[in-house]
Every structure is written in C-alpha cells, then in structure tokens.
C-alpha cells in the first residue's frame, strides 16, 4: 500500500521550565494514500500533537526532538521539518489541510464565508490577474458549498454567527477542500454536534474520500465513529502508538489489551450490557510515565516483565502491536 506521509521514529517534546514533557515518544506511522486513517486515544494521549507536527505547527514550547516526517505527495520525498518557510506555506492547506474541532473559532467572525474563501485562494494563487483569480475562487466556492449540500447562493454572503453548528462544520469542510489537498486532517470534527448531524457530516466526508481520493487522518475518541468510518486505526496511549492495523483487525483480533479495554469500555446500543466494563485506574501523567510498558498499571494481563521492559513493536503484515504478549502468541 502506498503511503502519503511517513513518520519515522518521531519524538515530540514540550520543553517546560521544570521538566520537559514527552508528548510523543518514538512513533512510526504511515498514512495510506486514498484511505481513511483514524487515531484514537484519550485526552493527553498525543494525537493532536502528532497531527500538528504533520503541518509543522506545534504550539510553543513544543518541538520535534528527533525523527523524520516525510511527505510523499510531491515528485520527490520531502521532509516537512526541513522545508523552507516558502515551501512550507505552499505545503500547508494546499497539500495537507485541517478541519478543526471548534468550527466557530476556526472561521473569522468578521468576514463572510465567501471573503474567507477568496482570501485563502488569492494567497495561494499570486500569479495572474487578481480579477480572474477572484472569479475562479468564487466559482470554486459555489461548487464546494454545493458539494457539502449547502445552499451556496445564500450561505456565501453570511457571517459565521449566522450559521448553525452543523452548517459551520460543513463550511469548514468545504474550506479545507478549497485548494484540492491530498490529505485532510480531521480533529474531532463532530464533538460539539448532535448525533444526527454527526452521521450526516461523516457521510459527506466519506463521499469526499471516494469522489476525490483525498486521504484522511481522523483524530477521535469515539470508537463507534472509527468502526464505521475508518479503513485503518492507530491506538495511542501515553504518547505511544500501541496498536495499528486495519479497522477490522484491530476490532476483531484484539491483540493489544488497551485497544480491547477501550472497545469494551465504550457503551454501545447493541452489545450485551454485561460485556461492557471500564478500564481500571486512570490515564498516565505524562510528567511521570510508568516504567516499562506505559499501560502496565492498568493492564489486566500485565506480568513482571511489563513493569521493567518496554515492549517492542511486533507486526504481522500491516498489523502492529506494542505488547509483550505478541511475542509468545504470534499468530
């Protein structure tokens, strides 16, 4: 399977005054071309940090400490960390765009929808006559708003506060498609929305994925959404990638005890109530991570070895699991 972005042994550190926090520790991950990859994890597991590093826009004092982030969408592989500022500016939004969690704070409240679309379009199209570019931007805006099932003629001239939450998020999705990106990062795109709107938004996103072949990286904590929407899942915990594989494999093979626990602890409408159970303990403090495997204090299958030795990545084909148990029972 072709990759679009490859992360190789990436570590990200927030250099705080007292003690630095390692938000991402040695993560290797390939985002597949044309597929939907989901990253699940609880708050503080590092998924948003990881996504920000793909755009080289970590908030200070965060920095990529080591590793490579290679973008393969150009003719030659390009390391995002080594891009010059000019190259980076055209890479952002044109190659990789992002739909943020709170659509209301991602849109400029003092501009109409059309003005924002035009502004971004012009910045990325400095050549040619401005008038022509503006007309092209407007045509593109109408096309995209129609595509996400919004009444373009009406919506275009509206300000963000005039739109409902679901409409704003659809405007944001159309906006992120403006420059024809190859990858869309979706950071919890539906958390503030109700279930019916959520289902509708994911339908639109799936259609975008199929029609335009846009790859997607979805960050979420909602296991249900992942099961329906994603082709691949990465499970993050304490800044580490615990498991990665196709959605089917991760849900059905139950290789990693954390993924299994996460699935079991998600209330569902359909599974047996008796089979749901919480994961004991609480998520780790990144300032004082446990020794050995980060999950061992909460793991029902932990042994003495898990306390001292960090498990290596064990993989079979595309499926990877960071757990000692894999060594003994490799299928």
């Amino acid at each position, binding site marked *: 399977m072709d990759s679009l972005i490859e992360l190789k042994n990436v570590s990200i550190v927030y250099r705080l005054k007292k003690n630095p926090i390692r938000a991402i520790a040695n993560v290797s991950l390939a985002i597949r071309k044309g597929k939907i990859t989901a990253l699940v994890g*609880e708050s503080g597991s590092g998924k948003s940090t990881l996504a920000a590093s793909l755009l080289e826009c970590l908030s200070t004092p965060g920095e990529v400490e080591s590793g490579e982030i290679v973008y393969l969408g150009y003719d030659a592989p390009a390391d995002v960390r080594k891009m010059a500022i000019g190259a980076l500016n055209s890479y952002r939004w044109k190659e990789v765009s992002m739909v943020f969690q709170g659509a209301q704070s991602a849109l400029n409240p003092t501009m109409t929808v059309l003005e924002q679309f035009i502004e971004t379009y012009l910045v990325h199209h400095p050549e040619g006559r401005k008038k022509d570019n503006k007309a092209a931007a407007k045509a593109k805006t109408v096309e995209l708003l129609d595509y996400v099932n919004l009444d373009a003629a009406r919506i275009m001239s509206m300000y963000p506060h005039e739109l409902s939450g679901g*409409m704003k998020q659809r405007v944001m999705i159309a906006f992120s498609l403006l420059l024809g990106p190859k990858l869309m990062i979706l950071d919890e795109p539906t958390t503030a929305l109700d279930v019916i709107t959520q289902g509708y938004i994911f339908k639109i996103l799936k259609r975008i994925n199929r029609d335009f072949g846009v790859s997607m990286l979805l960050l979420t904590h909602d296991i*249900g959404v992942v099961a329906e929407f994603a082709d691949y899942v990465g499970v993050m915990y304490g800044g580490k990638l615990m498991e990665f594989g196709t959605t089917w494999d991760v*849900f059905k093979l139950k290789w990693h005890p954390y993924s299994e626990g996460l699935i079991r602890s*998600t*209330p569902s409408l359909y599974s047996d109530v008796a089979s749901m159970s919480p994961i004991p303990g609480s998520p780790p403090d990144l300032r004082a991570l446990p020794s050995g495997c980060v999950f061992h204090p909460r793991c029902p299958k932990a042994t003495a070895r898990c306390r001292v030795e960090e498990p290596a990545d064990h993989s079979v084909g595309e499926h990877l699991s960071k757990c000692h148990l894999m060594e003994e029972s490799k299928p």
Partner: protein
Amino acid sequence: MKPLIELKDVNMVFSKRGTFIREEKFFHVLKNVDLDIREGEIVALIGESGCGKTTIGRIVTGLLKPTSGEITYEGKNIYSLIKLGKEFDDYRRFVQFVQQDSYAALNPVRTIRQSLEAPITTHYRHLTRDEIGEKIDGLLDLVGLNPPDQFLSKYPHQLSGGQRQRILLARALSLDPKLIVADEPVSMIDVSLRLSILKLMSDLNRRLKVSFLYITHDLATARYIADQNRIVVMYLGEIMEEGNASEIIADPRHPYTQALISAIPIPDPEFADLDRELPIKSMEMQSLEHRGRGCPFSPRCPYAGPECADEIVPVTVGERRIRCARLAQVPAFSTIRPGVIRTGGTKP
C-alpha cells in the same frame, strides 16, 4: 412505586431583548412537559443540545421556577411549600444536583474535606466533629475513593476528572438524598473511565435506593445506566417518547427516536454501514422562537401529514407514551434498520 417528583404540564418561556433592536423575543423552551420520577428509579433524559433537558434538571432541583405548570415533591406543590420553611428545606435537602463540569463545581481554594464538610455541618447540626469525620470517610468509601485520607487534604486541581466527579457524588450523597439529578456527569471524563462512574451511579441506586435523573445526549450511556428503567426522549422542549429503556432502544416508535437511534454508530466494523439512509427529511433543526402549535419535529419528519400542525395528544401503548399524531403511518423500526438489533443482557 410512589412518585417522588412530578412535573405536570410544565411550560418554560425565556425572553431576550436584543442589543440593537429593543424588541423582546420569546423562546418557548419547554412545552407541556409531564414527567414523574418514582422512588428508587433511574430515569434517563435524552436530547440534543438546546432541547431543554438541562432546564428540566434545574426545574426539578428548584433552581428555576417554571412559567406555568405544577411541580410536586411527594405530592406537595413545592412552590406552596416555601411558606412552610421546614418542608421546603427538606425538599432542597432530598433533591441534590451533580453538575457536568466537576472542576467548576468545587471551590478551588478549599480542600476536599472542607467542601464535603460544609453541607453536613449546615444540615446536621447535632453531629460532633468526630461523627462528621466518620461520615465523610464513609462517603468516600462509598464512591470508591480509598483510602479517604489520601484525598481529604487535597485541592480540586490535584484530582483527576473522574475522582472529582466521585467527590461531587459523595457531596450529593452526604445529605442522604432521595433523588440525585445528574446533568451530563460523564461527558467531560476520559472515555475509559466513563463506564466506572456510570457503574457507581447504578450501584448507589441499587444499594441506597436513591433515585437518579440522568440527563444526557448519549443514548448508549443511558442504556447502560437505565437498562431496566425508563428513558425519556426530548426534542425541542417536548417529550417525544417515554418508556422502558431496552424496549425503546430495540423498537423505537416515534420518528424522531427512530432517526436518533439509526444515527448512532455501532462500534463494531461487522455492522458498520455508513451508506444507510437516515429516516429524516431535513438536517436543519427548527428555532425555538418560531414554534407552532404542532409537532416540532414535523418539518424534518418523513411521515408528517396535515394533522401534525395541530396540538398533539400523547398516545399511551402499555408503558410507552408517544407524542405522535401519525403513529399508524410510521413503519416498524425493524424495517428501517434491520439485522443489527440485539437486546437483552443484564448488568454484572
């Protein structure tokens, strides 16, 4: 079972004056709400944001007085109790509130011990210091915070979200309430810990016979906590459907409940089907400002007819109450989303 709290035909209207245009706008937030909570029961109140579920919670706890309608506690109208003093105090003591944001609900400059002591010293004046200490230890033990000494001298910011939510439950329990209104108690907690708080609430319900009004937007958590109990589904200030939780989830009858349940993703790739059509006509929710007399869901309802514009009288089928004028036209849920419904199972 006796009803503990009853809302009868409750209406709530909020008004708002614009900044530039000095014209008053009215929002009919609750319309003709009838709700009863019986002793020892868990009632889950479900609805999207803006449907009035928190307003109901605030009315039940006596924080808001409804515009019209009656609210009774153990058969007595609480707004005629005010004059009686003692009885009104009892009502306030026996109906407790647990908020969504546990960080905002605890005083940041007080230790957990101070926060827990305050309501006890106010309401149980006869207790000595030692007895209060014992009671607090017992409460922390009850909500699964062991050993108590480890938590009592801490400040709220030193605890995790799940622990703070347990403290809030302990504080609510400290006055031996008969009803706890829990407004989205798990929505700000990490996913892996949500279930443990829900489990704690259903354990408390079973052991202490405390009733719960569990307010949420998440039907799956409601199913977990109120499995053998009641679910009340709200939409734009009206109760659309009400009945036994597992029956409603297996066979929703109201078109809105049907749409809601079919929109919820199934956390199992085996049943995943993103291409399914939602039984709904329009995605946009109506505004509360321009509410008509009829069903608020009718503009989005695929089965709507002319009778939906009139006042709708709820239909009672067994224990189920459904507010729909065209029930005969609504197809069975099994034809809308066949194949995946599995019911049954009890809590361990």
